């Protein structure tokens, strides 16, 4: 290990909704929608000195052959509204939400996020995603889907436009001098004009510059285009790589891309999602992890996973039997709707899964277990603290987003047992050091750009 100072681990917690990872069958499983659930997770994470609470977004319920999935968790609150309410019951923790750049408009989203930043005293963040399918589009005015390239084009201009709006008020735009009667510094406050291929808008923005200047920007993306987009624009990258060596490769690649865009690589933090299972011994933890995986791999969940890849009705196949020998049918209308398709190449993935089944003698369920096992840190609290710390200090990432398998108590054990060990090692702060999310993450406040007011 180098002589570089020990990195402080960035921690985030999320409540899963609309997913197959959370074990709703567990006796401790609580409401997925009651505010107390979100309050408990955010407050527990704050007790553990986590950097932020993260909420993903759903814009459509998943369907199979035109019928809503019945077996997964479904139902979640509006991202912005619940984060604003959480700002009332927490003091330090950041509040980051996923919000689509496809089914929102820059003016509206910029003012909502800036409002959240004001209402939380500088703790807001935005995970920008592009939405991909015509199915989800049926819930929105702009309707249908965009091609992969168009999604990025729109997203890039969307982010740039939102940043222009956030920059439209100077820090000292509000004078509020009761004696002289001057409220605004000048009459151009909030003026903006953006003319681009995606958005042609102008006027005045209603929200003064927020405590963080700009809310923290988070992006995901593993394609070269996605990596560049994130490396150029984001404060955080939400990465899918929680294991070495892929994680290290991704980390090095994205940080070097950031450098090539003229940024300090330390100003871009890389945070994968990760799971954990704690036990009294490694064997105990592994047994628990196996049990969790079994709950996740219910017959219906596995069937849907395979049906999505094959794009065929596979209900006639035995989940504990061999893989279908029939080929996928990419031409048919999608049988599974509203679930992100994560496989780059359908036929190649099927070939790989078949080879895996052949090599290890696996059933459909066995393959599902192999490809979807997601608990990355399994063991005693000491072992998990060791592994997580090593992962971070060896540049696998700058932190992790943790989700418990049970809502809302899933991260309690981590906070009670692992957090103190990380603090003892000096890898996790014992008190919050900043007042804004940017300060806690060690991110600079972006300089206000291109003040239109000054040139008019």
């Amino acid at each position, binding site marked *: 290990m180098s002589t570089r100072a020990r990195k402080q681990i960035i921690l985030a917690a999320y409540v899963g909704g609309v997913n197959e990872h959370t074990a709703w*069958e567990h006796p401790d499983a609580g409401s997925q*929608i009651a*505010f107390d659930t979100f309050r408990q997770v955010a407050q527990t994470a704050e007790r553990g000195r986590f950097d932020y609470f993260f909420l993903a977004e759903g*814009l459509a319920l998943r369907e199979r052959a035109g019928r*809503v999935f019945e077996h997964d968790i479904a*139902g979640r609150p509006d991202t912005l509204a619940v984060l604003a309410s959480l700002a009332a019951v927490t003091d330090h923790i950041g509040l980051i939400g996923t919000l689509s750049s496809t089914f929102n408009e820059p003016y509206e989203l910029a003012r*909502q996020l800036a409002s959240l930043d004001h209402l939380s005293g500088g703790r807001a963040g935005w995970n920008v995603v592009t939405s991909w399918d015509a199915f989800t589009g049926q819930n*929105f005015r702009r*309707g249908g889907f965009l091609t992969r390239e168009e999604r990025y084009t729109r997203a890039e201009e969307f982010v740039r436009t939102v940043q222009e709006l956030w920059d439209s008020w100077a820090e000292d735009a509000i004078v509020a001098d009761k004696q002289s009667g001057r409220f605004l510094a000048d009459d151009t406050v909030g003026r903006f004009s953006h003319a681009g291929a995606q958005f042609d*808008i102008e006027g005045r923005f209603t929200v003064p510059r927020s405590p963080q200047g700009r809310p923290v920007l988070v992006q995901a993306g593993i394609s070269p285009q996605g990596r560049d987009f994130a490396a150029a624009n984001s404060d955080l990258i939400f990465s899918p790589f929680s294991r070495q060596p892929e994680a290290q490769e991704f980390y090095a690649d994205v940080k070097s891309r950031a450098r090539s865009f003229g940024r300090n690589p330390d100003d871009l933090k890389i945070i994968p999602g990760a799971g954990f299972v704690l036990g009294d011994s490694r064997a105990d933890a592994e047994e628990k992890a196996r049990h969790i995986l079994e709950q996740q791999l219910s017959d219906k969940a596995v069937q849907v996973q395979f049906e999505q890849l094959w794009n065929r009705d596979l209900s006639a196949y035995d989940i504990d039997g061999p893989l279908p020998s029939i080929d996928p049918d990419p031409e048919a209308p999608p049988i599974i709707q509203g679930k992100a398709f994560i496989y780059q190449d359908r036929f190649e993935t099927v070939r790989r899964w078949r080879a895996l089944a052949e090599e290890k003698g696996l059933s459909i369920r066995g393959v599902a277990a192999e490809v979807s096992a997601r608990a990355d840190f399994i063991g005693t609290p000491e072992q998990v603290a060791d592994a997580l710390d090593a992962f971070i200090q060896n540049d696998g990432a700058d932190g992790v987003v943790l989700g418990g398998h049970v809502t809302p108590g899933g991260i309690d054990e981590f906070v009670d047992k692992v957090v103190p060990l990380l603090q003892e090692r000096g890898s996790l702060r014992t008190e919050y050091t900043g007042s804004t999310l940017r300060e806690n993450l060690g991110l600079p406040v972006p300089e206000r750009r291109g003040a239109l007011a000054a040139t008019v």
Partner: protein
Amino acid sequence: MTTTDRLRLGVALEGAGWHPAAWREESSRPTELFTPNYWADLVRRADAAGIDFATIEDSFAVQSGSPFGADDRTDEVRGRLDALLIASRVAPVTRRIGLIPTVTTTHTEPFHISTGIATLDYTSLGRAGWQPKVSPRADEARHFGRRDIPEFTDREDPRLWEIAAELFAEAEDVVEAVRRLWDSWEDDAEIRDVATDRFLDADKLHTVDFERRSFRVRGPSITPRPPQGQPVIAALAHAEIPYRFAAASADVVFVTPQDIAGATAILDEVRRAERDVARTGEPLRVFADLVVFLDADEPASDRLERLDALGRPLSSDARIFAGSAAQLADEIAALGELGYAGVRLRPGVATDDLPRIADDLVPELRRRDLLAGDGGSLRGVLGLPTSVPNRYAPALAG
């Protein structure tokens, strides 16, 4: 007097208050208008006093002295935060008060409105409402760049009414879409049946398949049906088109009578609009809006005069009341006699007049036994049925 005859009291929150110079008063906190504590303090004060609901104003445009576009004034409050998020921020720190943010229907997605208000209903434990508003201004439309709305300079321009009719028709569609999305989950759709591996019962989830000229929504919602089933919808209305919108879409209407004769005429107009749109179910709860300046150490009329002299004098769609709490209670009682459900008070200076409403007016109304009191959810507080049938659920047999 029965409980249903008694009156409900709301306050309308707008920046430092409804007077353009409100921010300059001694008590005002103009540098805190964009902080959470400012809003929490105001709404908590109203909540503690037993005020039934607070509405929070909003617009996609910077405030202006002109009805048609931005002005270049620098001597008044400019800038505002998103009202739904302000309401969400204060929900966990208040107990009983209804929270009714403004969300416009012209440039927003019905799907986002439905989940946003439903979520406020969850975080406030059944105290959410929504004040839908149209955005008729050209400058607001240019913030979105998706539709052209012509620039107007004259209130009497007949095209203004054409646009208004179009926007209110769309607002009616948006409200209908939102209401359907709230119903798109039956209350017992979540079953968590381990034996059959079913978290949901798909038969209890419904597409809404709502399609109109300017938007469509398929559904079902991503958010389960909110605690109140249907959060309260409240519309401000001054003329026939918005009365009809309110009659078709809302539970509550805020109107702006200038005197008793006007109050009677407006009530008649509202009831006529209800007949014209063939409203069924509960009649609209009609609230009169009043801008209020209440006597303190300084008489309210002196205060108003002093504020008017500071810059742009207050002009308002609603009657401007300046006087004592007892006089205001007389006016409120008179409105109650006519059949009004209550009043929504717009504090002239938020930090002076809200405390006067809480400390002087509310006790005065209580002494006269004019206030309704309790009610649980916002629907309950307003005397609306608290059990709302779901349009998609099969009617219960027997």
